[in-house]
């Protein structure tokens, strides 16, 4: 143990121990029961109605087996122990033989139970997986069809939780709610019928206990769920604190802040301990609840049963029958009460999933849309008085007009937020513009089918996004049917094949979002090769700002030059060399084009571009 410094933690840091400010607000775990949601879920299940039917069939069988057990035991006791004489008179067998038959039937029930229960488990899981697969498919496909604006306003975590937590809640409903409701309702009915048969009065007295048990359980179940959620939350705070501590350990040690962190962590641990203790108190009250209800029922059966027996309405065997039935009867009530909460959780999940599925994309193919013919080197792109904003109220592009002739390069220059990226996004039709016309080869962009447009566009992003998989997979992404040789040819054309082949596993080296073993510069080259393989007529390029080491930078520039040949290129430029090579430079400021021309023309004009350029030169070369 190290000596602990006494630490005074500033109040704004302790506040973060309680709840990370600005963290995602929690989505409600319980929803309200809605028939419309239930109906849609049933539609999914209806597709697999064959399996569903088997699920129901086995639920009925299982309820039968479970209810038969107390009856068989009770009747065995009745015939052999209570009235052996009657057994002899009726069936002409000894009580010992009777016992053998009773035990034999119980053993048969055990076998039946094993078979029915086993098959039921298999069938239920099968149904759940089939349904979940269908929902997942719809979710995946729908997400891919949604507008970019959806992704702008929805956090990744939110979308993911549709595919994780929410689907799990729905799966729970499929696995548990419907089959168990059927099973346990049937069991309650069967067992009640048995008790009713043994003694009417006692049966009805016990029926009065049903709402008490049900409500008590529902109440505690809710509280337990809530209290355990606080435990989960404080634990996840601990986990994320540790995750941060480990990933940020260099910063911590560099700034010698270990003692403050330790004090904060201890605070989190104590908080978690308190939550755990609170949960233990609630749970401690909950556990004996069932036991108490059960004991009250047992005493009722004994006392009322004895009284009914005195009056000649009941026998000892009837009373034992009650005692045997009551356990299963109560258990069924409790399970059904639990199902209520599971149902509400599933409702919350289903509601969010369906809300996502109901989000309609704005950008879709019109009925009269035609495909864009592939002609010549590069497309002609024309913006006519285009106005666009991510929200209708705030435009980021105002009245933008320009023309990119086939095969030419246009460089977009301007400060962050001046609208450069928006122009690129509009050409890909990732967003719909509000007014004006965007023409590709003279056709309005909204009259071109999205598939044909996208088959002729290529995009290289600043963040060099790569998918999990090999370098080869990532390049081939642009054209899934390309052969290995075609991929190689694309790399060769960019003069970067040997760069990839020098990687640990060559073109088969694995990369990923934070791919290790491949440098920033190499990642950029992969995205170039990807665009090269797609062989688009329109290439859009958002140049990376980062500085890579000088030799790689050299390679990148050479590859870039080759990539841009023979296509219409729209470049969000950060490199001076790119800007200088462009056929036309558009200088953007707050969504307007304020200057246009070639590098030399703009320098000669001695306006904004010249100022930007000179500032750049001065800053980057001053000693």
């Amino acid at each position: 143990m190290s000596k602990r410094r006494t630490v005074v933690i500033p109040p704004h840091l302790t506040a973060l121990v309680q709840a990370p400010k600005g963290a995602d607000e929690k989505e409600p775990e319980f929803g309200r029961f809605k028939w419309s949601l239930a109906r849609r879920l049933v539609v999914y299940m209806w597709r697999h109605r064959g399996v569903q039917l088997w699920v129901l069939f086995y639920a009925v069988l299982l309820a039968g087996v479970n209810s038969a057990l107390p009856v068989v035991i009770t009747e065995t006791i009745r015939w052999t122990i209570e009235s052996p004489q009657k057994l002899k008179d009726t069936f002409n067998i000894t009580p010992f033989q009777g016992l053998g038959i009773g035990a034999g039937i119980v053993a048969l029930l055990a076998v039946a139970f094993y078979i029915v229960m086993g098959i039921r488990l298999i069938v239920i899981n099968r149904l759940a997986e089939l349904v979940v697969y269908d929902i997942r498919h719809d979710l995946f496909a729908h997400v891919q069809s949604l507008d970019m604006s959806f992704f702008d306003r929805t956090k990744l975590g939110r979308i993911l939780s549709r595919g994780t937590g929410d689907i799990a809640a729905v799966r729970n409903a499929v696995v548990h709610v419907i089959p168990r409701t059927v099973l346990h309702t049937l069991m309650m009915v069967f067992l009640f019928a048995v008790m009713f048969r043994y003694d009417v009065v006692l049966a009805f007295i016990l029926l009065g206990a049903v709402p008490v048990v049900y409500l008590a359980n529902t109440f505690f179940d809710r509280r337990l769920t809530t209290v355990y959620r606080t435990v989960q939350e404080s634990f996840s705070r601990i986990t994320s604190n540790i995750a941060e501590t480990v990933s940020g350990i260099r910063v911590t040690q560099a700034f010698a802040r270990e003692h403050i962190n330790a004090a904060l962590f201890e605070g989190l641990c104590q908080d978690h301990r308190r939550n755990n203790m609170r949960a233990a108190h609630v749970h401690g009250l909950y556990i004996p609840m069932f036991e108490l209800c059960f004991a009250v029922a047992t005493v009722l059966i004994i006392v009322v049963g004895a009284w009914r027996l005195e009056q000649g309405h009941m026998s000892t065997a009837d009373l034992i029958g009650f005692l045997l039935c009551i356990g299963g009867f109560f258990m069924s009530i409790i399970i059904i009460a639990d199902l209520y909460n599971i149902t509400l959780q599933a409702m919350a999940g289903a509601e969010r999933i369906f809300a996502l599925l109901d989000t309609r994309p704005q950008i879709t193919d019109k009925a009269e849309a035609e495909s864009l013919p592939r002609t010549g080197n590069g497309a002609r792109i024309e913006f006519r008085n285009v106005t666009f904003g991510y929200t209708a109220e705030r435009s980021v592009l105002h009245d933008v007009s320009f023309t990119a002739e086939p095969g030419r390069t246009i460089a977009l220059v301007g400060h962050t937020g001046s609208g450069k990226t928006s122009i690129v996004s509009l050409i890909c039709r990732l967003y719909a513009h509000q007014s004006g016309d965007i023409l590709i080869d003279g056709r309005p962009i909204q009259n071109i089918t999205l598939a044909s447009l996208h088959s002729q566009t290529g995009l290289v992003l600043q963040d060099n996004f790569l998918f999990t998989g090999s370098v080869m997979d990532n390049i081939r992404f642009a054209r899934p049917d390309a052969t290995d040789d075609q991929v190689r040819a694309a790399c060769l054309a960019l003069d970067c094949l040997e760069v990839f082949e020098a990687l640990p596993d060559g073109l088969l080296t694995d990369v990923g979002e934070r791919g290790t073993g491949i440098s920033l510069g190499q990642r950029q080259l992969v995205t170039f090769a990807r665009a090269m393989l797609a062989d688009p007529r329109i290439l859009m390029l958002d140049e990376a700002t980062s500085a890579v080491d000088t030799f790689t930078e050299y390679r990148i520039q050479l590859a870039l030059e080759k990539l841009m040949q023979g296509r219409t290129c729209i470049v969000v430029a950060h490199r001076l060399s790119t800007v200088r090579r462009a056929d036309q430079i558009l200088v953007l400021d707050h969504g307007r084009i304020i200057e246009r021309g070639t590098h030399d023309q703009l320098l000669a004009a001695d306006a904004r571009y010249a100022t930007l350029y000179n500032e750049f030169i001065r800053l980057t070369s001053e000693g």
Partner: protein
Amino acid sequence: MPPPSEETEPSPNSMPLGILLRRLFALAWRHRAIAFCAGLITIALQLLAILGLSGQGIAIDLIHHRASPDAPAPKWPFGFAPPADWSFMRQVLLIGGFILAITLITSVFRYFGRVVDELFVQQCVVDLRTTIYDKLQRLSFRFFDTHDTGQIINRVTGDTQAVRSFIQGVMVRSVVAFASLGVFLVFMLKQHAMLTAACLSVLPFQVWMMVRYGRKTKPMFTEQARLVDVLIHHFSESIAGVRVIRAFGREKETVAKLDSKSADARNQRISIAKDQGRYQPLVQATNMLAQAALVGYGGYLVLIGEGAGGIALGTLWIFRGLLEQLAGQAEAIVQIIASTPEALAGAERVFKLVDEPVTITSRPNARTAVADQPLAVAFENVTFGYDPERPVLRDITFSAQPGETIAIVGPTGSGKSTLLSLIARFHDPQAGRVTIGNTDARDWELHALRRSIGVVFQEPYLYSNTIRNNVAYGMPEAPTERINDAIAAASATDVIAEATNGLETVVGERGISLSGGQRQRLTIARAMILRAPILILDDATGAVDAVTESTIQQSLDRTEAGRTTFVVAHRLSTLRRADRIIVLDKGEIADIGTHEDLIDRPGHYRAAALIQLALNESENLDASEVQP
């Protein structure tokens, strides 16, 4: 998010089981008073259960005797018998009251049992967690370089949970399981040994079966979790990369790929269900078989009567009840058996972390004052390697005068970051020494040394916290003014201006997303706020564009009053400002000099500089700089 893969933990030189168990018990022993309480409550609960069941048994005998007078009269326990003049109903009511009373007492015990149990576990775990955390923070970079982040996190969360489950699941619960088994067994054997044997004969079979089931399905469930992780990973990627997918028109392929991953998870889950269906119902089914034995053999014993070695009907009922309770214990034992290896493995990893030696520590009588005067830094014949056999730095000697700016250049892997990491003593050299202000770095108190140095790492790590707390990380009490100064010095004022809540905006994983350049500037501000006499910039401006980099450099120049600065950079504009440039190559100093010196000499620096000049096509630069 790296693609999830199967975690195969290498466990070289594993800890002997004896030592492991001893340490676990030692941990629990510290909280023995509460553990003892928990044990007592457990045994009391078992006795109460028997009492309650006995009440039912007597009631049944009483009623059976009343209904068929030739059946034996109830045997009252403890020599107690109700007065002879009590009516039948009065006796029944007495028993009913007794059962209720026992249940009430049981409830109270259950409640306290649960609370005490949790108290015990929590005390052990909080203890352990804070110990590990403390350790974790003091381990050297070496440890974090060689261990996977996810695994380290798991040590403190998952593996501590494993220790918890060992203490709670194995130590506590096995006491419960064996106490109840013992108490029940003694009671049952006393009633009827043969019937006990007949009923309990299924127990070993159940345990064996369930252990087998656990062994068989555990890897399958692990695989299922992995398949789902893979699916979610791809789903996440399909959202993160949606622009790329759109621009290349690859939506269909993406969905098809997701579907195939989804089908993998589905098919595997269905195949797990087949095993579940085969094994899971076994326990309940064999319990029913035990009931068959109870009915057949137990009924026979009731028939032959107590006089001939049989039992009363009430006793049969008690047996049935105990059997039901024991069925639950079988599952508990299975749980214990199944969880033990895993819990022990977790505990072993936890103890290994606790035992990990802290290599970088302060010496006694070390220099404790945080420096506010300019400091010189010198490397004297420093050799260092993460693996001592393979030095990354060899025989490095140079010195930086107070206030100098030293730039370090060299190809990837030449040891630039490693060299810088020795200054703040993130590692100790194997040979030679590093002196800070003419004192060996090892003779500084670690805290004082590091507070004298502002470090900006290559990877711009920000905490999921407000910008304020991130910038003031090393100085939580800093006034807003000082924070704003630091932000201005790092040219990051625009980051704050764009953020929705200014300084209070949450950044990092849970907050708004910043570009690499913005993050880097905030980390520079974080170092600037210390106003430390030494500043280390380890490729801290790689992700910012050239103009911003120059702006930052200029403001650093302005604010540096006698600050000794070390900087790794690629851009000539930055390198030119340095007082001296150290060219590293394969861990050795290839050259030292000013930009003007180095550009004249053939070598790595000149080559790199020439390419950069060519790329920038900077005709405005004086040609004489390029051509000597």
